């Protein structure tokens, strides 16, 4: 297990190096001058030239790349062109907010999605089942940002129950709408997966035995079928959790949530190169770590899964 984890982590290095290189080249190739977005267009040429030299923007590409990599190796993500704050510090500030939002969203997705899925499996073939499953198919197809707008419209503009946006010093009321919005696609997906895997398991012999013993249907589904249906559910939740860390861009923008997603979006729009490079790299690393955690969790839940082989 440990060996497997180490092997996987070892593979992170080339992939992260790839991501770092792609980001670096992308930002190098693409037009737009960070110095201009820093100082505005009214500064004199000498100031601009000074800054360019200071930021090593005029160095040849290989030299800049080498400097970039050596900084990275020292875990130095550089300093934001715009705010002057070290990027690593900003990431440390923002990441917990995104993490909090992601955990809340994942909790909603798991609880709500599995409940819907088991209910639908229990009442399979009934109008209730069609309604739940139909609803989840629609849910997968709904753009995140539109659901956010819809929730703001209903709960904030119409009913006045919840705040429309902001962080509110971490108060729970401010977390509800963003978390619901972010969880939407996963909730729908978890519901579908839960239903189909529970139904798959329900056809197995051990469930038939339990049913013959006289166990009630809900108990049967939850205690026996669901337990063995956990594997695919964990996969979905794990993949989604990883993508929350980056996929929160839209949700965080709609709700003015001070997380990593919005940080990255702002950085991109202002061409703040160090901030973009740092946050993208951080997200890719987080994504891969979560995937690794999921794979390890896999082996824990299902002893039949053997880790190793092709990494």
């Amino acid at each position, binding site marked *: 297990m440990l060996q497997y984890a180490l092997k996987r982590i070892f593979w992170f290095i080339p992939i992260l190096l790839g991501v770092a290189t792609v980001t670096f080249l992308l930002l190098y190739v693409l037009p737009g001058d960070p110095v201009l977005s820093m100082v505005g267009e009214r500064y004199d040429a000498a100031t601009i030239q000074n800054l360019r030299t200071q930021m090593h923007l005029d160095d040849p590409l290989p030299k800049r790349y080498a400097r970039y990599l050596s900084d990275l190796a020292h875990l130095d993500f550089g300093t934001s062109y715009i705010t002057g704050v070290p990027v690593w510090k900003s990431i440390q500030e923002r990441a917990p907010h995104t993490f909090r939002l992601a955990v809340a969203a994942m909790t909603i997705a798991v609880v709500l999605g599995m409940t819907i899925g088991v209910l639908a499996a229990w009442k399979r073939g009934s109008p209730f089942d069609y309604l739940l499953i139909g609803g989840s198919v629609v849910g997968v*197809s709904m753009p995140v*940002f539109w659901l956010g707008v819809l929730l703001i419209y209903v709960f904030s503009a119409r009913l006045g129950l919840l705040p429309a946006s902001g962080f509110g010093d971490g108060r729970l009321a401010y977390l509800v709408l963003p978390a619901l919005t972010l969880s939407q696609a996963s909730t729908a997906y978890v519901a579908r997966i839960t239903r189909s895997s529970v139904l798959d398991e329900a056809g197995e012999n051990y469930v038939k035995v339990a049913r013959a013993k006289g166990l009630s249907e809900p108990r049967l589904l939850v205690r026996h079928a669901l337990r063995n249906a956990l594997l695919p559910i964990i996969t979905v939740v794990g993949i989604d959790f990883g993508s929350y860390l980056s996929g929160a861009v839209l949700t965080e923008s709609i709700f003015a949530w001070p997380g990593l997603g919005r940080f990255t979006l702002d950085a991109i729009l202002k061409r703040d190169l160090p901030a973009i490079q740092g946050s993208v790299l951080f997200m890719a690393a987080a994504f891969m770590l979560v995937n690794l955690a999921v794979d390890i969790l896999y082996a824990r839940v299902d002893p039949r899964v053997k880790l190793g082989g092709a990494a």
Partner: protein
Amino acid sequence: MNVGTAATAAELPRVRTAPSLWRRLVSHRSGLVGALLVGIVVFLGVMAPLLTRSDPNVIDMDNALQAPSVSHPFGTDMFGRDVATRVMYGARFSLEVGVMSRVIALVIGTVLGLLAGFYGGRTERWIMRLADVTLAYPGLLLLIAVMAAVGPSRLSLFVSIGVVGWAGVARLVRAQVLTVKEREFILAIRSLGAPDPIVIVRHILPNVLTPIIVIFSMGLGASIMAESSLSFLGLGAQPPTASWGSMIANGIDYLRVAPWLSLAPGIVVTLTVLGFNLLGDALRDLSDPRLGRPARK
């Protein structure tokens, strides 16, 4: 690949499963719903200039922010433009971006997937490693970065959404090629001395075509979603072009007084993506139930 092999590929018999697939689709309930939704959106998008009376971009401040009525089924926006007309032109825009970007993703993904699956070894390792990097990269962020830098335009939407989507296609095609290339007829053709390009284009490609068609339909929904997300952030369609994403974004400030501005395009986007998802799922079920789902963003 040279022109000669492309010509021989064109002489191939059409995919034999196509007509029966269509007939089976009609009896597949959710697939039929999906096909209908897609059909309606395509119809509205293509026919938009004939179905609407007004220009989607003509400003009429006297009629700004009117509630839905008979003459304006979805009301009018802050510039007095008819929302229903703009929703139809939005369909045109989204479909155009969706189809073009999918074609790009499919061409790149298929070519690289074929090469990786057929040649294996170092070629395969490099191509699949590149796919890993692409998939590890946060998709929407990559799109945002590209769009912010090259400037939003129709072409940059096509290319960026297309390029981001190649990796999933390549993985699927490679997996299919791996099973096809071990079959006896391929061995037979190769032992007859057929050159690699002929084997790949004439004999392997036709046998991996069905999953490619399926993934095309499934990816269309995702491409349209990506386009509207970018437009929502202001990085896709630029004013005054009508696009669902930007219409929703522009309507946010008017949620209390004119909710239809955001609600109408949102409903249409959802139904469109729903249609492509249902259709894609149905095509997958009907063509090969063993086919995996493509990676989600």
